[in-house]
């Protein structure tokens, strides 16, 4: 394991190679183990995240994909201790192994002061809505300087110079330092957010739907920039989105989340070409493709289960075209896909393999009331 931060074009490649090997390799930067998060409500606990294991490798782009309400944000904010009551971490550990730290630390065991030092300096977050995350009455420069001063000891002049160089980094002209957020376009605001996250050279950058509000041209531009910065500076990225098509292009590995649990984890290639879990298959069949022949598209009919009353067995069963009664007793363990050569390609569905044909039209047990379409039968590659 190298600890230098030079411009190494091989960083990405090695990151990918490491990632596909074992989960608990020493190159894991952030290791989420058995994490469970519940929301306490008068109507009972909502188990938003249920015993999730996820490891982020050094220099890796790990994509976390799921629908709204799947628990992907709760997982990440839980792991970084950003949740407040009624959210409650009920189980698990989050081990961070930074190059600047002498030994691994467990984020869930840390005191407030330790956490404060770790946040941003080691683990930074780019939030979804740049419009809300930036302070509307502060100039861009002052916000950058604030972020720098909160985490690094540095004279004011030096911090200002650093703020300017951060804007250079993300391709915004320095003249914008004196702008207020409302004077910037959506893409520029998102770039400022990225610049802020990188202000203290963190090792892990968490990106929560950083491009959702942007249109495709700007989105692509920003994603390309993120990849470029990652290669240059050598941080790791945990990228949260509901858009699987983005991750297929961007991520090294992809974790698919549904109803608080992981359903499938694999490399981007495996997720696309050896798709194992029926939910992942549904996601892949959900976005229109611009190139190639027009495919029959289906989406995923129905909606996610109410986590106050989780169904027995597999939570995807009510929407699954492959579902059988045996699915009500599945214990949702992530196990290697039998047909895959990579033991790190895991799925929670013990029945469906990449080449399993879609069964004849059936109404899955307890099919959802709203949103069943005549196109249900089209699901499948």
């Amino acid at each position, binding site marked *: 394991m190298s600890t230098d931060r030079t411009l190494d074009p091989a960083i990405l490649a090695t990151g990918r190679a490491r990632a596909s090997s074992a989960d608990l390799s020493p190159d894991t930067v952030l290791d989420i183990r058995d994490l469970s998060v519940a929301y306490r409500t008068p109507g009972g606990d909502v188990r938003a995240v249920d015993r999730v294991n996820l490891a982020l490798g050094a220099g890796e782009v790990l994509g976390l994909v799921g629908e709204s309400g799947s628990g992907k944000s709760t997982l990440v904010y839980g792991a970084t201790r950003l949740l407040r009551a009624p959210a409650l971490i009920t189980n698990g550990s989050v081990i961070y192994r930074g190059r600047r730290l002498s030994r691994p630390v467990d984020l869930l065991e840390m005191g407030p002061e330790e956490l404060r030092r770790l946040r941003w300096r080691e683990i930074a977050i780019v939030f979804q809505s740049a419009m809300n995350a930036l302070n509307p009455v502060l100039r861009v420069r002052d916000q950058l300087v604030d972020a720098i001063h909160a985490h690094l000891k540095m004279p004011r002049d030096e911090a200002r110079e650093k703020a300017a160089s951060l804007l250079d980094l993300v391709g915004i002209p320095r003249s914008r330092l004196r702008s207020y957020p409302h004077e910037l376009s959506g893409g520029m605001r998102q770039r400022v957010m990225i610049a802020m996250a990188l202000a203290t050279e963190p090792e892990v950058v968490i990106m929560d739907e950083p491009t959702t509000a942007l249109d495709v*041209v700007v989105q692509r531009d920003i994603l390309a920039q993120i*990849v470029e910065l990652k290669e240059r500076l050598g941080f790791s990225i945990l990228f949260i989105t509901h858009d699987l098509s983005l991750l*297929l292009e961007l991520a090294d590995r992809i974790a698919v989340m549904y109803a608080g649990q992981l359903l499938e984890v694999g490399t981007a290639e495996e997720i696309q070409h050896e798709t194992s879990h029926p939910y992942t298959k549904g996601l892949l069949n959900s*976005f229109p493709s611009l*190139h190639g022949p027009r495919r029959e*598209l289906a*989406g995923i009919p129905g909606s996610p289960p109410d986590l106050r009353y989780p169904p027995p067995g597999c939570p995807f069963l009510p929407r699954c075209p492959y579902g059988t009664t045996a699915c009500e007793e599945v214990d949702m363990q992530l196990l290697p896909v039998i047909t895959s050569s990579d033991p790190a390609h895991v799925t929670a569905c013990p029945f469906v393999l990449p080449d399993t044909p879609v069964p004849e039209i059936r109404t899955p047990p307890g099919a959802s009331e709203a949103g069943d379409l005549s196109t249900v039968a089209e699901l499948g590659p």
Partner: protein
Amino acid sequence: MTELTLTSAAAERGPLAMEAISIGKDFRIGRGQILHAVRDVSFNLYRGAVVALVGESGSGKSTAARLLAGQERLTSGRIQLDGKPVKVASRGDFRRYKSEVQLVFQDPFSSLNPVHTVRYHLERPVKLHQPDANVSQEVAALLDQVRLTPAQQFLPKYPHELSGGQRQRVSFARALAARPAVLLADEPVSMLDVSIRLEMLALLDDLRQRFRLAMLYITHDIASARYFADEVLVMYAGEIVERGPAEEITQHPAHPYTQLLVASAPDPDNLGSALRGSARRAQGSQSASARRNPEGVPAVGCPFSPRCPFADDRCRQDDPPLMQISPTRGAACWHLDIAAPEVVAAP
């Protein structure tokens, strides 16, 4: 205004419902500056057909929809509904117009009133636009049409009790309550999860067929336009820069801006081509030119010229009109022969 005689690819679906004829809208933005949000835009909507208006934020596509909906005043041009000029001056006129032309908004979280139930949202337009109808029956039928069933279960709910997809269904039902001929859908699915977008588009498609709606589908996702629309209009800086049948436009874009849009769409069938690592796309110039010109749109010449890889002096001087490529297709570019030789050469 332009000399060309294009036939809309949507025309074969049904009779003409609405015409936008050289419509334009200027906004004053202070210090005597004027923003031309929509410039000389013409298109037709036909019953039972979908026309997609595609462009990035700020291209004027939403303004165009608001003009058609009668919610903004035209600076120039005119709009005709069923061959007659549109009147929205008086309250009564506006209401009559609204019963023919309805708008669905992008954000189902803010377009429904949080303090009112689904029942209230639907009863009001039914009472307004169908005074003779049996209100509760009609409301139940509406919910059924957007597949919020059983209706009784959804009627007493408040917007916060519904998922994003269900909320957008309520928006659709509210628009349908007026029994419109024209439905203007402004990014109807872009706030929703990817997994339910298709379902919503399939629903819109079903409604289009069932009610023979003339639909304007506004989006920045050109891939969804390929699947959903008959004709695609690509808008940039307030102008239509390319138009034609959806499949042709997405498969063989002619205008450099359309080409950029198509190249920017996430492409799962071409994995690893673009973003990841060393396999960076050879067309780095495309990406670089995609960076938005900080000066904005030039006052003269082609609005896309600052970002265009093919731009020359002529482009910076004269704004090209829409030029005919085929009977159903046109593009506004001086250099189509360089930008899209295979499209222009085709018979």
